[in-house]
């Protein structure tokens, strides 16, 4: 018997529903963009005469960097698709009735969740073969594909947890009602449980996507030609001029911000929307 209490403070945390980013509008993003441009200007002041200004240099390289950034997005989308597919299966494994499946799914999930993304990326990079033989065909395993696989490992683990969490968060009455109506377990899962889970899973899933997108730059550490690698190469080509670093890295920051910020806003919006309905 619980005493009556008006102390939601002690109840499980509800997602707070106040304005997510109070007073932050597109004009503030503009301000951010401005800072990214001021960076080069500050740098310009230090540039020795007789050289192109950092801003010009950056503009010269911008198209290439943008191409690299698009490659990042391709990596992120592929890794997300791949990780989600496997993670969903793993997540369902975690709620399986077969103890062995459940425990092994749980272990795999925990293992890859506890491992740092970067370590997993190294893991995929160095331990996957350069090519695999399938029925006599040699399928090459280029670096970018390995990067996708490496990044989809943690995505998989996190999706698995998201699925499990969403299924767990449904009241057990839903399972019981379906059971008492003679649904099979499969039917219950596909017709009753999962459709209700999708809504609950969407916000954390998008959050995960955002995190993944930002993790694609890790691929630079293992040498995939994405935006950070290109930035490094561009800086090397410009002779490692230190005053170029701020504008170049600032530019990369800006690219990601422009892509990820709307996703974050949308996620918060979704969260609020579903919080009201449920």
């Amino acid at each position, binding site marked *: 018997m619980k005493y009556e209490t008006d102390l939601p403070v002690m109840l499980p945390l509800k997602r707070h529903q106040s304005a997510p980013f109070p007073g932050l509008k597109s004009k503030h993003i503009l301000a951010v963009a401005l800072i990214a441009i001021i960076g080069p200007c500050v740098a310009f002041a230090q540039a020795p005469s007789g050289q192109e200004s950092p801003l010009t240099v950056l503009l010269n390289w911008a198209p290439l960097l943008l191409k690299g950034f698009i490659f990042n997005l391709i990596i992120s989308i592929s890794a997300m698709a791949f990780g989600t597919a496997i993670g969903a299966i793993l997540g369902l494994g975690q709620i399986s009735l077969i103890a062995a499946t459940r425990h092994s799914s749980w272990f795999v999930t925990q293992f890859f969740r506890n491992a*740092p993304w970067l370590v997993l990326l190294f893991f995929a990079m*160095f331990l996957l073969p350069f090519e695999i033989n399938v029925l006599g065909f040699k399928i090459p395993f280029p670096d970018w594909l390995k990067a996708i696989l490496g990044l989809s490992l943690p995505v998989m683990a996190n999706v698995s947890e998201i699925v499990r969490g969403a299924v767990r968060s449904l009241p057990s009455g839903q399972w019981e009602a379906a059971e008492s109506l003679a649904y099979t377990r499969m039917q219950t899962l596909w017709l009753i449980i999962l459709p209700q889970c999708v809504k609950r899973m969407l916000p954390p899933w998008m959050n995960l996507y955002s995190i993944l997108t930002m993790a694609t730059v890790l691929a630079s550490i293992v040498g995939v030609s994405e935006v950070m690698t290109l930035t490094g190469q561009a800086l090397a080509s410009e002779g490692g001029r230190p005053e170029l670093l701020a504008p170049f890295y600032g530019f990369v920051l800006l690219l990601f911000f422009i892509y990820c*910020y709307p996703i974050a806003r949308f996620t918060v919006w979704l969260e609020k929307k579903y919080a009201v309905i449920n």
Partner: protein
Amino acid sequence: MEMVYEWFRTLYQETGINLPFLYDEYDRNRMIDGLFTTIKLSLVCLFFSIIIGVIGAWLQGSSFKWTRRFVSVYIQLFRNTPPLVQLYFFYFAIGTLLPRVENDWGGQSPIFGSFAWAAISLSFFAGAFNVEIFRSGIEAVPKSTVEAAEALGFSKLQIYRDITLPLAFRVVLPALNNNLVNLVKTTTLAYAIAVPEMLYEANQIWSDNVNVTEMMVFLLLAYFVLVGILVSGMNRWERAMKIPGYG
């Protein structure tokens, strides 16, 4: 101890499984240093990111529009850009703009080294999440409880310190722990600016010994254990912090 080392040396000779950090003193010291650096970096970042979270959440609740804006911009900037790029930006871009100090080998070196920048950058990164976490906790504290404190004559600061924060803290502990675990995993990024943490040292060892597989497996296990210890510690803490009679 020597026997264990010997055993691993024999293991290498006989099976080719090469774990030099277990028998080679030079590599062992590197690995131990790496482990300690990882732990040290994690602790420093944990500490500062929580401080940033607390102060940020407080500022975000302030009545000045501009402090709130400032905190929001900070959060959004750090949440929506890759921590690795942040790290580069801090270390290379900001680092070179700051004044220098004379160092012991007679050169001019920046006031902050790579460890310091990793600590700063990662603390700000995790701090951005902590601000939001604490904020949501503070909002979960019923207004009436705060009013009760007000009616008892508590000052604003006292209320924040004695009532709001301790309550909010308990509410957000699960979310906070989750973020802190992520932070520990994120310390591997410091590798990119040559902070000699575990991944960096492992990389050095596999470059020298060409034993990527062994080192990789070891690294995964090491982080699994490290994070596992952290998680179980956090869970224990969560249980200890639970207020009798609730939840």
